[in-house]
């Protein structure tokens, strides 16, 4: 399609405006992370400052130096907890959810819709409502403040998401393609691994990415169920609100460090997402 130069220019301007509008907070946070609290808080704000790595150094060494003295913070520990919790939760949700999604997509059995809907309904309840009884149970059976317990609770976030997104992708694969593989002499299991999974991979990637972001951003579950040594960054960031004031520089640096993994993952998964869109040869 040919476009006139004016249209192209307007299009470019519009895109720039949108990108700046949405990216500005991120950009500002990145800039803040290289400043001290003093330069951040001066009025009017200015871009004229000498960049400092002090914020990152404080986070990585775990020593928060403020004018009121030195404070220990476990940010790197929190970051590690976030990675561990999110990766394990998504991995577990994939192991459980993908075969389940396939079953719901391909085998209409008695009550299959009800079970699928029940799993989705986990997302309906307000988390706080679930949390109180859950905390009591977890304390009784010794799961409170354990990684296993948290990963289990995180399934409330990840599993329905993966199940419902991936199910749609499985349903879009023509059953004939799977029949063709079966008739060619391959077992059900082989067909699932070699045909269904590769063809649904874009959907699985998208669902896994979304589930990862939701798990990573979760706050309430970890706040209630985990103590300091098991807390992810979302909860750990509370430590920056100190008695001597809010450490904006460190918070900004912490945000930059904590969005980095999600961003990296999104960039990697993007390849699969695009591949999924161009894989148009599924149907004859």
């Amino acid at each position, binding site marked *: 399609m040919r476009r006139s130069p004016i249209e192209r220019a307007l299009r470019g301007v519009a895109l720039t405006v949108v990108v700046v509008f949405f990216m500005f907070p991120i950009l500002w946070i990145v800039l803040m992370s290289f400043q001290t609290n003093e330069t951040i808080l001066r009025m009017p704000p200015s871009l004229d400052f000498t960049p400092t790595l002090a914020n990152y150094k404080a986070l990585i060494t775990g020593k928060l130096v403020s004018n009121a003295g030195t404070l220990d913070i476990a940010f790197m520990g929190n970051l590690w907890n976030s990675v561990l919790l999110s990766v394990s939760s998504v991995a577990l949700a994939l192991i459980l959810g993908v075969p389940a999604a396939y079953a719901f997509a391909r085998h209409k059995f008695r009550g299959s819709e009800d079970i699928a809907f029940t799993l989705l309904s986990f997302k309906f309840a307000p988390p706080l409502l679930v949390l109180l009884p859950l905390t009591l149970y977890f304390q009784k059976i010794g799961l409170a403040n354990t990684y296993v317990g948290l990963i289990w609770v995180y399934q409330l976030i990840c599993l329905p998401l993966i199940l419902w997104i991936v199910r749609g992708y499985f349903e879009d694969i023509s*059953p*004939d*393609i799977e029949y*063709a593989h079966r*008739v*060619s*002499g*391959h*077992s059900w299991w082989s067909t699932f691994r070699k045909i269904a999974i*590769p063809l649904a991979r874009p959907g699985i990637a998208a669902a896994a990415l979304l589930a990862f972001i939701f798990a990573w951003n979760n706050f309430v579950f970890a706040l209630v169920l985990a103590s300091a040594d098991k807390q992810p960054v979302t909860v750990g960031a509370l430590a920056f609100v100190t008695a001597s004031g809010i450490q904006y520089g460190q918070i900004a640096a912490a945000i930059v460090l904590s969005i980095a993994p999600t961003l990296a993952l999104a960039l990697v998964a993007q390849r699969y997402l695009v591949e999924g869109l161009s894989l148009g040869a599924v149907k004859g």
Partner: protein
Amino acid sequence: MNDGAAAPGATDAGEGSLESAGRGESEDRETDSVAKLSLHGITRRYGRETVLDQVSLDVPAGGTLVLFGPSGAGKTVLLRVVAGVVEADAGEVLIDGRDQHGIEPEKRGIGMAFQNFALFPHLSAFENIATPLHSRRGEGATRAERRDTRTESVERVARLLKIDHVLRQSPGALSNGQKQRTSLARALVAEPELLLLDDPLRNVDAKLRFEMRLELPRLLADQGTTVVYVTQDYKEAMALGDRIAVLVAGRVEQIGSPEDIYLRPATKRIATLFGDPPINLLDVDPECDADGPYVTLSGRRYPLDPALAVAVGRQCTLGVRPEALRFGDASEPGAIPVTVEAETPLNEKVVDLVTTVRGREILVSRPAHLSGPASGEAHLVVPMERALLFERASGERIRPRGGSPGSPDTDAGGAR
């Protein structure tokens, strides 16, 4: 589900005996040996809808059976029941006399080509074709040797189907014709003893369809496999099948040779499905006088075969193929006055639409080199010996009793 009570091997030799006993033609070949594939009373319902209703048929080893029927007749479902990917609610599938109940599709030793090709989009054409070979034990002791045999088999069948130059491409990059050949190659490569082809020429262009229609019978004969071929193109059905099973609304309405189906259709519906332009159907009420049974067309008396006397007094429909009709002089016996309304030249033949005095429309077809009236008044000769008589309400053909010479039932020659 089917209880699978019948002992393996105890196949019923009478073809279509359960369903179409009353309609099936007596000259259906009986299989001496155990049929390669036999179906007994296959029934399949989806919800309230019965898609397959007591379908029974046999395919002898090495034979080709064409499953013909309008869309929605249940042809594809039947093929899937045979392949084992769809389960029948009742009835049994026997391959080599063995009940296939509970046998997984991968264990049935079947090759299958799908109407929408069903190629694996993430694999190359080569890998697609090679899929059936991975599961079967290749010859050769080592892994490398087995791979070589596989490559050889794929390339051989690809050469046969003229797709050896596109083997490295992914299905998305292939034309429809190449996709169709790839899917056919995948079905053929492992040399299965039973081949199920689900309307493989449906989605390819007219030229390729014509080529494949010529090539396929030879290819299938060379392989020596037993073939079930699904199509809704009557020309394809007549070109490919030793025998044709006509499936209408989930029931086998007739099984027979292409000739049987064309000249001795069991029902009005089958007569309409075969032939282009379609058969002319005229409502008639056979009567009887001293000279025997007759029908009246445009006020003229047309004597019926005496063997058709059973039709007298019943409401009937007369079926006459457009190519059986011809224009003639008013003086000829059996000529009725008609008006030629329109003429459609179709290269090798010319089809005329004519109306009778009573305003009934009739199609007349003649070879293009024969001249005929293009418009205006003319006379039409109706050859009663080539006409078919159907009972109007049930649509079933009224068979001559005793079968006198000259009736379509004994006269094998003619209108093709």
